[in-house]
């Protein structure tokens, strides 16, 4: 941006919370707004929906088996006569919470490793070899070992659902951070040579705070991209895990699982595949657009425009 725009209107004096600016910019991004509205809708639906739609998602009603959409079951019922709408709502709760938290964990882990490797040259070789190691490890045996070792202790500590939730999030997080770490490392390597990092050092800012204040905010963009991909990855991985019996109990619906269970009936009952498939894709798409918007909004250079 050139000098020319400087004398635009002077802003009101009161120090306005920065987040308002971010929000203002975010609002101008059409895709991001649409994504946000959809995402909020989905979140509200899956968390508040069960209070309105009171059918128990695990309740089996044999008379309703394989029923198509009706007033009693707007999305139809599955092969055991469970209400698909209720299952979609309950499944969404799990999928979205798992997707979000696992994604965040993997981001945190990946960013942490990436920043360490990029910023401290001494750690670089070792951490990148560690990344290679994780990339090379066969996932399934790894998951089985983790789950074998930690399922019961966690269950005891946090109870059944919370324990498994923690376990799954942990498992997904620990097996999907490598990509982020690499990207972040590359960016940090470039960023740490920037003059403002040197400026911070000349002030006497310790490395820890240089990273927090100067490096991290400037690698938002690759992190956002990883985040959107991460959420899709986490939702799908969760379904694979519970299918393998490594995840939630088998009667516990999640989107991924609903999709997986229904895929054999794609010809007989296509709607059963479409609902979870659509839910996953649209959520991922929404998060992607939100990520785009957020990236733009968090960048003051774009915000000014």
């Amino acid at each position, binding site marked *: 941006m*050139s000098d*020319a725009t*400087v004398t*635009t209107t002077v802003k009101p004096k009161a120090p306005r919370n920065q987040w308002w600016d971010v929000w203002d910019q975010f609002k101008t991004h059409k895709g991001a707004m649409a994504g946000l509205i959809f995402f909020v809708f989905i979140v509200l639906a899956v968390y508040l929906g069960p209070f309105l739609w009171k059918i128990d998602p695990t309740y089996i009603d044999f008379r309703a088996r394989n029923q198509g959409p009706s007033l009693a079951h707007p999305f139809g019922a599955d092969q055991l006569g469970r209400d698909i709408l209720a299952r979609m709502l309950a499944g969404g709760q799990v999928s979205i919470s798992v997707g979000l938290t696992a994604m965040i964990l993997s981001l945190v882990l990946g960013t942490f490793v990436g920043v360490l490797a990029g910023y401290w040259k001494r750690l670089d070789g070792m951490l990148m070899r560690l990344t290679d190691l994780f990339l090379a490890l066969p996932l399934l045996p790894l998951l089985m070992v983790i789950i074998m070792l930690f399922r019961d202790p966690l269950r005891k500590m946090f109870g059944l659902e919370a324990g498994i939730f923690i376990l799954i999030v942990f498992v997904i997080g620990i097996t999907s951070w490598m990509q982020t770490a690499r990207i972040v490392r590359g960016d940090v390597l470039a960023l740490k040579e920037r003059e403002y990092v040197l400026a911070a050092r000349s002030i006497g800012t310790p490395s820890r705070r240089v990273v927090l204040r100067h490096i991290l905010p400037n690698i938002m963009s690759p992190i956002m991209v990883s985040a959107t991909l991460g959420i899709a990855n986490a939702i799908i991985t969760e379904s694979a895990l519970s299918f393998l019996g490594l995840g939630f109990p088998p009667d516990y619906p999640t989107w991924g699982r609903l999709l997986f269970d229904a895929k054999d009936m794609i010809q007989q009952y296509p709607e059963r595949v479409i609902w979870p498939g659509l839910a996953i894709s649209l959520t991922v798409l929404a998060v992607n657009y939100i990520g785009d918007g957020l990236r733009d909004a968090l960048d003051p250079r774009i915000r000014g425009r």
Partner: protein
Amino acid sequence: MADGAAPVLNVRDLKTVFKTRSGSVHAVNSVSFSLKPGELLGVVGESGSGKSVTMMSLIGLIPSPPAQVSGAGVDFGGTDLLKASDDELRKIRGARIGFVFQDPMTSLNPVFTVGYQIMEPLRKHMKMSRAQARGRAKELLELVGIPDAERRLSDFPHQFSGGMRQRVMIAIALACDPEVLIADEPTTALDVTIQAQILELMHELRAKLGMAVIWITHDLGVIAGIADRVLVMYGGQIVEHAPVRELFKHPRHPYTRALLKTVPSVRGERAERLEVIEGQPPILRAEPSSCSFAARCPFAFARCLSENPARFDVGPGHDAACFYDFEAGAPRATVSAAAVGRPEFEGGAHAG
């Protein structure tokens, strides 16, 4: 040199507008000037005053969108560059008009050898064979003073120092013996000692090849040493135009005057305090309806804020876009003089 000859390049009423997301930017506003064969026209002006955009607009190098270029015509050897098709323009660019860009570090493609980049226009425009082009490229490198030219042809740009890269850029621009060379701040990024080498080189080449040159800079020192005539730009307009000595002796636009004062010198008197031009350059949101310098001008008066001054003749080959008459020391009479877009200015003493 070449006084009175027909101009090689004649720009009339050139305008460039950028349409951006947050509104339009009128970067170039009714710029008119002409260039005679063999002369060196200096262009000075503050950063953002539209120097680069003007030059790039005339040969269609401005990406469009976002830019829109319009005007009464850019006459180059009988062709109107504004109306020329892309193909015609491509035949002119590189072949008849050479361009040297500001930043030698980034203007060369890092993944091709220097030789390849010099040979590219030769092969395209002059239809030379590979061997011929290579021979010519070697000559060119020698011409711009790079030792061991043969070997260096197969080096990559990053293996050259900044000054050498700028010389490579010049070699590329000169490859097809252009009639006009446009050099956009070619020495700004360089050291004084290297800059001196390049200026010297320019002098020699012009004597040898006799082409016309447009030299953009904001370093008045460079202008003083090299230009025949000078255009001063401000806010997307030409605010003053004069032969070089005339300009330094009798600056007739308050911006030029201020500019001359801000620059310290290594040789002359040392001022205790540097003059500054207070205020900010304008944002070119719309076509100017007032004098764009008015806000920063110590001489400004009411008229300056309501009307955009045309370029008044103030001397032989000297005009300035200002309502204040410095000779008289008072505002001009209401008669508005020469219309903007006059095709030709006479005169132009040269310093070479």
